[in-house]
């Protein structure tokens, strides 16, 4: 699809929520998609028809509905595998969200030392490398892993522009490095990191590369094989899909070598009172009744995005982000925290407005129908790095219009008047 053919008005017709009038009869300007995206009718319909026409548990119900539900769940795995260009459908593990996917990796790597030949186990003397721009969900699981195993946590610092400081890369990625876990696109700064390059560096020293792609899969064309990572985590609800489902993609030979995460039904081969043996991936990592309807919804979301084309979605994201950076640059007292040019940059812009706390900014914006996020965006260390306690964040997606950005800029001016900082 060419840039000219991208018709945001047509796309918006698929999202009934944009018809809502907000308090004070304001039109909704939803600029909080990095938090969660809105859902198109197609996704809601897919979930609804699953529940209303095909509902049953999967992989264990010996009846027609059970077969239909199982088929739908496994079809969803195929759809997601195709969407991220996974070499095999068996590499797609459904989780509750990206947080669970990252915790899954950190947990099983911590146990791997006592499992089979212990090849990928993390232990004392090993290092885990993350960065200062990670979401808490890609910090805390690794801190917990280090506490459990005696490994050491290290991290990339950030440049003043909000990019990874790669000056220290040679002293950070060493023979001791066991895991490199990085965000692909920062949820706070918007920075797009060179994860493919860093995956190569990680592999040179025998480390595993884990990518938090929560903000990347929704807005970039993704080919996990080309990326060269070992694990990629993302979530459904930020890519026009439902909440309650996330994905861990992992290289099959690696997944096959790793111990289970949670124990329960469906992840076993056989169980006796003394011990159990475990199913092959992906089932080994999907204990209990999985998020079936959510998988169906996620597949509908992937189909929806594929129908538009991820290259077109990415191009729109870049256009609207460039427009927003330009417009926000004209607001007095506004300072963007993160790259100010739309190069290697995703559609989230965090900023400070002099003299007004982000909560108060967001409150005034909300009174005008403009929905943004205010706070630390689950990235406290990144805020600390830039000497700010919190920021206001506007984030965009495939349905965002220039008019919505204009509404933001206008509401920011109103906030400055309201709090008398003009």
């Amino acid at each position: 699809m060419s840039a000219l053919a991208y018709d945001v008005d047509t796309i918006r017709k698929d999202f009934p929520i944009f018809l809502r009038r907000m308090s004070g009869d304001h039109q909704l300007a939803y600029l909080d998609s990095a938090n969660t995206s809105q859902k198109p009718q197609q996704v809601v319909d897919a979930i609804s028809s699953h529940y209303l026409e095909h509902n049953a548990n999967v992989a264990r119900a010996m009846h027609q509905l059970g077969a239909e539900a199982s088929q739908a769940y496994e079809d969803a795995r195929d759809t997601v595998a195709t969407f991220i260009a996974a070499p095999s459908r068996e590499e797609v593990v459904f989780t509750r969200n990206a947080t669970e996917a990252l915790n899954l990796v950190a947990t099983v790597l911590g146990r791997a030392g006592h499992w089979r030949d212990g090849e990928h186990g993390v232990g004392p003397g090993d290092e885990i490398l993350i960065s200062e721009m990670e979401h808490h969900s890609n910090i805390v699981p690794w801190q917990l892993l280090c506490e459990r195993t005696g490994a050491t946590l290290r991290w990339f610092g950030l440049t003043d522009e909000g990019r990874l400081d790669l000056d220290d890369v040679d002293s950070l990625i060493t023979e001791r490095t066991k895991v490199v876990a990085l965000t692909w696109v920062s949820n706070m700064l918007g920075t797009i990191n060179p994860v493919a390059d860093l995956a190569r560096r990680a592999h040179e020293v025998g480390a595993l590369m884990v990518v938090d792609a929560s903000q990347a899969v929704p807005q970039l064309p993704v080919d996990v094989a080309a990326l060269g990572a070992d694990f990629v985590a993302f979530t459904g609800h930020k890519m026009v899909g439902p909440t309650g489902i996330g994905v861990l993609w992992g290289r099959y030979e690696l997944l096959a070598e790793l111990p289970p995460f949670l124990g329960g039904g469906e992840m076993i081969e056989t169980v006796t009172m003394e011990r159990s043996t475990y199913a092959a991936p992906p089932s080994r990592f999907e204990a209990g009744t999985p998020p079936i309807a959510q998988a169906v919804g996620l597949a509908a979301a992937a189909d929806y995005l594929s129908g538009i084309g991820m290259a077109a979605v990415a191009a729109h994201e870049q256009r609207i982000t460039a427009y927003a950076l330009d417009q926000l640059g004209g607001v007095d007292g506004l300072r963007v925290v993160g790259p100010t040019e739309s190069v290697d940059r995703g559609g989230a812009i965090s900023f400070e407005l002099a003299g007004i706390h982000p909560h108060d900014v967001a409150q005034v914006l909300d009174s005008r129908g403009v929905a943004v996020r205010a706070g630390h965006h689950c990235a406290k260390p990144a805020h600390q790095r830039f000497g700010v306690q919190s920021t206001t964040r506007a984030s965009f997606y495939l349905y965002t219009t220039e008019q919505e950005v204009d509404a933001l800029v206008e509401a920011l001016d109103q906030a400055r008047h309201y709090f008398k900082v003009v």
Partner: protein
Amino acid sequence: MNLDSLYQEIILDHYKNPHHRGLREPYEAQVHHVNPTCGDEITLRVHLEDGVVSDVSYDALGCSISQASASVMTDLVIGKPIHEAVVRHEQFLALMQGKGQVDPDEDILEDGVAFAGVAKFPARIKCALLGWMAWKDATAQAVLRGSNTDDTTVTDQTVTDPIVDGVKEDA
């Protein structure tokens, strides 16, 4: 939502010119409270003397509501007997949790009545309570500490009750 019902002039005044700000000596207890959802934080000290809240000093980072609320709180509790301050805390809490249905008593809450509108903005209630919760925590610790070092004291239970449960009778 009407912004003015949230941002009363009194609130903005306290925000611009907060009362009793800064950390001071002496104090018997210091606490650090954070609102984990937004990162607002306060470090607060309490100095008790003869059953009276002699000083409350604090250093805080946060939005207009949390800053103004801490400022108003210090006005309301400093110089008051602990049990009276506790009653004020209790009334403010009831106002915040009242979903906009509680009619505040201006004789007791004074400038605190300006926060009545906050109760209708669920996301901001925690902002308004940050300083109060820190004060309650610090005061409970100070009372406890005082009772532990004083031979003549009543048990922990009777001393902390007025703080924790807001029992209104004299301790």
